[in-house]
């Protein structure tokens, strides 16, 4: 007999986490289920220490030149000593990301909410949204720069174009999951159409909306960095090309470190958001 199974209390009635239609990221992450144990956390930290420390030791041992691979200590030193040079670019990138994501995300969300109410319109619009999702919006950046110049506008537009359709397509999946019994319930207690939308449809779609926002914002970050590499004189993407051209590798890697931090922060934020607002579905 399977030992693992033998120790489980049979709970056949429990739904085993409906996996149907949970988009790109999957939602099991929001569940109240398995918490990381202390041991696991220790091992995760230990792996990081070993990798970073090992790299440092190996690089020193073999005397690897800085322009090939800088030592972790050099990267951290660069991060702290040149912070005042780097920080303004962080602000620029975050500004582009947040503005573009806000514009794209709101349009995507509203479109999803409206379009799912009209099945015919939805069927007509969906292929075009898919086209927007699958075409890398970075490709449009040179064109946008021609039209809007080297300021932040073309990059904001690119971020909006990259994140909006992502938000929309996931949110639409959420809004499509109508549960007529729940709507009838609200209506039987005298709910208006607006109340049904805010009290039933939105909470029901919330898990998918959060997935859309998470994936959309990561796409937005990618696009913002890429767009900065294409043209202009500011932002973290621009700094990457700048420092690599000057072969200033500690600074280059310091920026990579910051980008990773931004990406992880986005993930943690939406994970927390999902835990708070979508943990019921797990």
């Amino acid at each position: 007999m399977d030992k693992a199974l033998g120790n489980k209390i049979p709970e056949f009635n429990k739904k085993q986490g409906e996996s149907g239609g949970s988009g790109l990221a999957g939602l099991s992450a929001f569940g109240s289920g398995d918490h990381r144990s202390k041991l696991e956390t220790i091992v995760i930290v230990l792996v990081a220490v070993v990798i970073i420390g090992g790299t440092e030791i190996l690089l020193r041992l073999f005397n690897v030149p800085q322009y090939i691979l800088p030592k972790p200590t050099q990267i951290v030193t660069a991060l702290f000593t040149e912070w005042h040079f780097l920080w303004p670019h962080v602000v620029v990138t975050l500004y582009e990301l947040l503005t573009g994501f806000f514009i794209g995300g709101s349009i995507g969300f509203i479109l999803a909410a409206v379009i799912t109410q009209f099945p015919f319109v939805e069927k007509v619009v969906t292929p075009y949204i898919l086209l927007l999702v699958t075409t890398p919006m970075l490709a449009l950046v040179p064109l946008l720069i021609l039209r809007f110049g080297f300021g932040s506008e073309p990059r904001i537009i690119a971020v909006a174009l990259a994140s909006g359709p992502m938000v929309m397509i996931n949110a639409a999946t959420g809004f499509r999951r109508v549960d007529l019994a729940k709507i009838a319930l609200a209506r039987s207690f005298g709910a208006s159409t607006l109340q049904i939308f805010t009290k039933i449809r939105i909470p029901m779609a919330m898990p998918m909306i959060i997935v859309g926002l998470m994936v959309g914002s990561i796409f937005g970050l990618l696009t913002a960095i890429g767009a900065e590499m294409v043209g202009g004189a500011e932002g973290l993407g621009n700094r990457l090309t700048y420092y690599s051209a000057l072969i200033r590798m500690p600074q280059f890697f310091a920026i990579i470190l910051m980008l990773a931090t931004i990406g992880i922060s986005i993930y943690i934020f939406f994970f927390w958001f999902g835990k708070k607002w979508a943990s019921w579905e797990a």
Partner: protein
Amino acid sequence: MTKIKMAIDSATKFYETRSGSVHALDKVSLDVREGEFLCILGPSGCGKSTLLWSMAGLHSLSAGEIKLGSETINQPHPEIAMIFQDANLLPWRNLSKNIALPFELKSKQPDQSRINSLLERVNLKGFENKFPRELSGGMQQRASIVRSLAVDPSVLLMDEPFGALDAFTRDEMNLLIQEIWMETRKTIVFVTHSISEAIFLADRVVVMSARPGRIASIYDIDIPRPRPVDIQTRPDFIARVLEIKGSIDHGRGAAAGLAIT
């Protein structure tokens, strides 16, 4: 002569589907008396749920009329509360927020003392912060009963509320709903496909037949209350079950889809 609470006058309903129109209700006329426990019994597809949803103002009729007192029901009415199959709690709200929903929809403060005494009545005190997924099916349905009673409606419409529960929980729920009815004397219209459940609960059992849905017969159930669960094994009770089952079988041939239990 008791007062008429709800009057259904030749209610007729067609559903338009791709394969043509389905005749769900055919000139159903029925008076629901004030304070009565009425069970509507019938095989699936006989239109009993359609009738109930129309009484709740959730469906519109193709012809005919449903009245509550002198008011025509064509949209949900505050005096009428519906209890659905499978409890129908909102999974993203805890118990107390689920129960507060009807108040919230009317921008009113929940009547907390009433809710508390109802929760106590159905043994759910202390579970207010639990989410539906943490509760058993019976507890969920009890919570949904509290949610409906909290707004103090005069009519309760119940759409196969215990159909998904196991037999023991179902007996428990039937006893509970009988007690609640005896305490509150609300008008209850209870849809079921279980003959014995209908007889156990009802003052009158309305038997419907399918395609088109119409009323086949009405039985008065004069068994004194409170009725204990084991009444269902007594010969006179079984005789009633067989009588109703016989009439249904007679009406639609031998292959009856109705459960005896």
